[in-house]
């Protein structure tokens, strides 16, 4: 379990699942919101990761 990407995906999965179940009552709405949130987490993490790539730490 040392892959950063795997842990990021796992984290995004849990957070989007819980938020979607809190925010929506119907299964269809939960899947739609959860999927959108999950995709948003992954996409923003990848974009921010590449944007930070040129900056040495």
């Amino acid at each position: 379990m040392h892959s950063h990407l795997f842990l990021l995906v796992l984290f995004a999965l849990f957070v989007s699942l819980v938020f979607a179940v809190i925010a929506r009552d119907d299964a269809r709405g939960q899947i739609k919101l959860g999927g959108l949130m999950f995709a948003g987490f992954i996409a923003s993490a990848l974009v921010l990761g590449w944007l930070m790539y040129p900056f040495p730490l």
Partner: protein
Amino acid sequence: MRATAADETQSGALVLLCVASWAIPGAGHLWLGRRNKGLVFLVALPLMFAIGLALRGRIFPFDLADPLVALAALADFGIGLTYFVAAALGYGAGDVRAVTYEYGNAFLIVAGLLNVLVMIDAYDVALGRK
């Protein structure tokens, strides 16, 4: 205006609901008959906390001398009984040398904070706001 016995009973039940919802993730929703939601929280939140422990995250102590540590401890505390069980079993010492240490902390802290949100949601459902 004095509170009636019915009001006091209702507020007592609400406090009990919130305590149950904090102590066992999803218990509030199960109590209110939201079975599917309750089961999702009951599985997902303790699992997230357990993954945080497996990643060698730290259950932070309530150290008021270090405000950030105290805030992290407060967030960890949000997971309820799982916090005490993990601490009693000796988990959550944290290993700062582990490559997954910060990931573990993120899982532990966010699991606690999500459970607080779940508790607030159960409170809203009980009041008929949702």
